[in-house]
């Protein structure tokens, strides 16, 4: 192999247009993938890992920077690159065989050859007997096998996988992973390299030779770890556990503030985490055996939660000052310990105090107090947030602030008029008249 890598991503930036201006989702990504390796792109939702993968596939045009595959710049879908999708993306009106054949026929391969190659791929991936089945007749695992067969049949040099196992149940996912890894280590595939997008740390450590950790808002490369354990890897071995710990620590490290642009404190993206989950994690960590301090991977394991589910909750605790989260550990603060002890009413009072530490929530309350009627349209805050976040994130952030603020009884929200308002116990506003009966019914 010459020293030119199979794939080179250089200073790739991607921004999407929104109502006013643009928002940056990928910030100066540099990445090289060489023949013979499986590279994992690990990050939470919002870190732009899927966008990065689609840029590599030529499905998304980068705003600046370049993707070079085999020395040629990528401008659209490239031959020699194939992709496996999270939701399988099979054509429901085609049989398994037709699904696998379609990619070849689209390239103009004649019917006979296409059929022969498709059958070979189906055979390789363990689908023989299902050639004439329709996707809806297959289980999720079998559907994803079709997805793999369809990608492999075009004999790609680079295989891109977009969270291929995350829509499957744990057992099926593990079977599929091992099967794929067997084909790969036994060199029965003509693929030179694999890029895998995932939010599952164990999966990344299990499959990859190299894990690239992406940080969100805007998506950028935060760290890179090489995993030198030999295949097949033993999930229970000390070395494996250590590697998982290391990645966890990297992911929960306080990410340095983004280099570009001054981030207004109110405009931090907040994941919408339900108050029940927050209470649940606080209680779990407060209880034995953790007694107020816990290792995140361990908590995740005992609660059967994945990174994408647990980290936002931990982050919410941190944001609310109920816990400190760093280096893969979560440690309850005094407020957090108090919260775990108290009853519902006291908790609400405590939560209220803590919620006001979130800049956006305090800001909303100030704005509402400054207005004579104590009301402000939702759009007002959404627009404000959109100066710094994408539309989707602005919406989610505001939804989170609304849910927490409601629970803290700081303000209310009327989804019909789409207004936030200060709590007005007696004088029901005429606009919300229609909601009257439902609200009263729950009060009684």
């Amino acid at each position: 192999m010459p020293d030119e890598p199979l794939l080179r991503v250089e200073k790739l930036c991607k921004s999407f247009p929104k109502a006013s201006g643009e928002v940056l989702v990928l910030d100066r990504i540099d990445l090289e993938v060489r023949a013979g390796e499986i590279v994992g792109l690990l990050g939470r939702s919002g870190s732009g890992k899927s966008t990065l993968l689609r840029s590599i596939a030529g499905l998304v045009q980068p705003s600046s920077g370049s993707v070079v595959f085999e020395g040629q710049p990528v401008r659209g879908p490239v031959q020699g690159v194939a992709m496996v999708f999270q939701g399988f993306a099979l054509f429901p009106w085609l049989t398994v065989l037709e699904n696998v054949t379609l990619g070849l026929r689209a390239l103009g391969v004649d019917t006979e050859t296409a059929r022969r190659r498709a059958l070979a791929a189906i055979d390789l991936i363990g689908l023989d007997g299902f050639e004439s089945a329709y996707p809806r007749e297959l289980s999720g695992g079998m559907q994803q096998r079709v997805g793999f067969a369809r990608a492999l049949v075009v004999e790609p040099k680079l295989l891109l996988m977009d969270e291929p196992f995350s829509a499957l149940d744990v057992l099926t996912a593990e079977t599929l992973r091992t099967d794929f890894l067997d084909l790969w280590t036994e060199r029965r595939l003509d693929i030179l390299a694999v890029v895998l997008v995932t939010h599952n740390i164990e999966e990344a450590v299990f499959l990859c030779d190299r894990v690239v950790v992406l940080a969100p808002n805007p998506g950028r490369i935060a760290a890179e770890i090489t995993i030198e354990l030999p295949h097949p890897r033993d999930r229970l071995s000390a070395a494996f556990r250590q590697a998982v710990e290391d990645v966890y620590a990297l992911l929960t490290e306080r990410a340095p503030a983004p280099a570009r642009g001054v981030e207004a404190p109110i405009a931090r993206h907040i994941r919408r985490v339900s108050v029940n989950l927050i209470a649940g994690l606080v209680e779990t960590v407060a209880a034995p055996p953790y007694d107020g301090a816990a290792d995140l991977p361990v908590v995740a394991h005992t609660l059967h939660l994945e990174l994408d589910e647990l980290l936002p909750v931990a982050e919410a605790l941190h944001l609310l000052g109920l816990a400190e989260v760093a280096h893969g550990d979560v440690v309850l603060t005094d407020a957090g310990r108090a919260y775990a002890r108290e009853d519902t009413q006291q908790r609400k009072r405590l939560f209220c105090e803590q919620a006001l530490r979130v800049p956006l929530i305090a800001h909303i309350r100030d704005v509402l107090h400054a207005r004579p009627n104590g009301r402000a349209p939702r759009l007002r805050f959404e627009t404000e947030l959109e100066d710094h976040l994408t539309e989707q994130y602005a919406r989610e952030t505001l939804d989170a602030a609304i849910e927490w603020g409601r629970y803290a009884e700081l303000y209310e929200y009327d989804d019909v008029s789409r207004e936030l308002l200060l709590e007005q116990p007696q004088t029901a506003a005429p606009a919300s008249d229609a909601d009257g009966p439902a609200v009263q019914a729950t009060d009684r």
Partner: protein
Amino acid sequence: MQRRYAFPIALRVGVNRWDLLAAALALGAVAFVVAAMQPMRAPLAALEAAPVSLDIANLPVYALRTTFRMFAALALSLVFALAVGTLAARNLRARAIVLPLLDVAQSVPVLGYLSFTVVVFLRLFPDSVLGAELAAIFAIFTSQVWNVTFSFYQSLRTVPGELHDAARSMHMSAWQRFWHLDVPFATPGLVWNLMVSMSGGWFFVVASEAISVGPWTIPLPGIGSYVALAIAERDLSAVGWALAAMLVVIALYDVFVFRPLVAWSDQFRLGAARTGEAPRSWVLSVWRRTQALRTLDARIRALLRHATLHRAPVAALARRARVRDLARRFSAPWVGALAWWTVLAALAAASIGYGWHFLSGIAAREWLQVFLLGCATLVRVIALTLLASLVWIPIGVAIGLRPRWTARVQPLVQFLAAVPANLFFPLAVFVIVRWQLNPDIWLSPLIVLGAQWYILFNAIAGASAIPQDLLEIARSLHVRRWLRWREVLLPGVAPYAVTGALTAWGGAWNATIVAEAVRWGDQRLLAHGLGAYITVQTEAGDYARIALGVATMAAFVVTFNRLLWRPLYDAMERRFRLG
């Protein structure tokens, strides 16, 4: 050992028992097309030589020709929908202008098209029946095409992103994606809307076949003309026969065309879960079980696949991409935008100028008068839509809550919706004349006679979509009678009810041109309204006034769609959406 030539099929593959039946069906289809197309090439004088007569023996032939016209219009609608829907979905600039245009076009009554296009087609094919036939087909087309187009556009916009990405990463070209992703995905919606369009089309067949615009009175042989003649000659039994013929035709094409289509299109439905039983059709089963046809079918499929998978060589595609890149680099995006908007502005200015010139002969007084007539019709349409909702929503909900009733009633309603309401107009004339009633009030019910079924239809669908859990919890909480209606049933069906009322409202406007000016023999009843105005001006051939009337009606409909229905619909969706 693949043989090259497929024919004669029967010799090679052998015949099974289904073949005879299928061959008969296929032969019937061919005969239908040939028989219906042949008279089209006759000179116009032939129509005068053999005028439409009320002889019942003629009815089968008339039915045949009418059906052919409707299917021809339907085929045109499909082509139009595929082209325009794609344009609107794929090209942002085109969308900005195509969608409002479709919205306006939808609200123009069928006479508005007929009166102008008949001139064009007769000029294109002078002295031939073909011109008149095309004019009639085009008129039917204008009553069928819009919802089909909107349906295809909606489907294109909702193709799942991952499927789209998958197709692109498999290097499928735009042409290949269109036939192997977009069209299959849109098929169930298209089939459904084609059925609805077919039903709706019957209403306008009478107006479209008995062309009567200014100096031209061309009765094309068909059921529509037959009905028109029966009305002119006050022959009630002929009207009855026409109705019978229509019902037979509707039943026939339902069995031989739409049921197979629906059963076939079921495979394109996305998602594993199917509620209820899969649609079935014995015609489709015959088609699939027949040996010879299976071979033919496979060959047609191979041919289609070849055509739809055809692609330019990869090198050519790359070259094209490079040219596009270059073009992009050397021309700022505003150049294209500027050119586009200049052309549009010029077109708009030209049409306004021309329209002004066209309408300038009409006095301001008459403009005002037409506006007031529009208001009168508006009041009628609103009142009747409300009234029909009040009647049909409770009935629909009652039916929809009982699955067994729903299964029985739904096909019946579908059937009723296809029966053109104008067949019952003679009855109305008779009653109004007999008791000296005020036509301004008593003609109004005719407006919703055809459109009311949409309300019932949607109410049934809405009620059967209310989750069983909600009904059960309401029962266990002893929520009954009025409270149950107010808090459970009405909110549950609200989005559907609005959809139904919106559809009925559109249909009612279109129906006013027929329902406000009713004839029975030489008796003519006119209500004061925009519909009657347009009808009268069409018969007089006064193009300026036809244009004024049609434009006013379109303005009324579009304004109310924008100001009333769209916000109402959005609010209902947001507030009462289940799940």
